[in-house]
């Protein structure tokens, strides 16, 4: 397989295509994980249309929109980082990853404040106000916390991955000739973005 036969290459055969395929297969399981939750959302919404309307009135469209812009922009910076490393500009790639991390952090801070308000209003499952909600509204907030929470965990994991990769670029392990790990982390990051692209209208916009 390795046509450019240095002994090093023969000893350590590298298959970037397989690595990418592996990443995609993992992403498929993620799609089905969130897909299942979206289906639960669809059914509950169908059965409790009015309650879901009331529920989404409680969420701030502005915060949701700002977070959408943060995530879309962070996807851009990851895509630009890949372009940069393909052109051999490692330093620029690291800087772009750092911008991504700042945006991810800003997203999470926003989310923290948003959740905090809900906690203060007692809307978290088990709290005072939550117990008084109708079944439909309770389902709405249940799903809201579950889905945005699970998504938030993915943002944190993606951020940690990108940080490790930035370190790899700094040490020279990830470079113009070998950047599959950055590509795969990028794929993960974009998937997290795509999931948010659906979460945003479903929870914040449709009332």
């Amino acid at each position, binding site marked *: 397989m390795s046509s*450019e036969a240095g002994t090093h290459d023969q000893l350590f055969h590298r298959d970037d295509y397989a690595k990418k395929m592996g990443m995609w297969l993992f992403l498929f399981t993620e799609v089905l994980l969130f897909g299942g939750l979206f289906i639960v959302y669809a059914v509950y919404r169908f059965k409790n249309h009015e309650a879901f309307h009331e529920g989404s009135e409680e969420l701030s469209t502005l915060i949701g929109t700002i977070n959408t812009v943060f995530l879309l922009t962070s996807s851009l910076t990851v895509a630009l980082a890949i372009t940069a490393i393909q052109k051999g500009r490692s330093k620029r790639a690291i800087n772009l990853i750092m911008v991504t991390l700042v945006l991810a952090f800003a997203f999470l801070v926003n989310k923290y404040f948003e959740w905090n308000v809900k906690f203060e209003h007692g809307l978290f499952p088990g709290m005072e106000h939550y117990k008084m909600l109708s079944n439909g509204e309770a389902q709405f907030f249940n799903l809201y916390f579950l889905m945005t929470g699970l998504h938030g965990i993915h943002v944190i994991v993606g951020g940690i991955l990108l940080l490790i990769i930035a370190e790899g670029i700094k040490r020279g392990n990830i470079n113009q000739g070998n950047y599959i790990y950055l590509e795969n982390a990028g794929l993960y990051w974009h998937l997290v973005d795509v999931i948010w692209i659906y979460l945003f209208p479903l929870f914040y916009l449709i009332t």
Partner: protein
Amino acid sequence: MSEEKNTHVVSSQLNILIWLDLLIFTLITVEVAQFDFMALTVIMALLIATTKSFFVGSYFMHLKFENVLLRWLVIGVICLFVAVLILLFSDYLF
């Protein structure tokens, strides 16, 4: 194989153009949601979200430049999800 990868470099300009498209679609989806189109509101929001995902998948995730096998796998997973959704709602709607 290890060195001769089919690398396609997406230019920074194209990436930024896609990002601008995504922002415009976000603006549209926020504006459109102000109006009440009844059942169409959900469909409209999902159509715009899917358009945005298509841009992210094609350009940011490089699917447009990947080989046929990978692209068909992605299409297959999407079809599986849509099929589950349709089968489920065929129960609830009728």
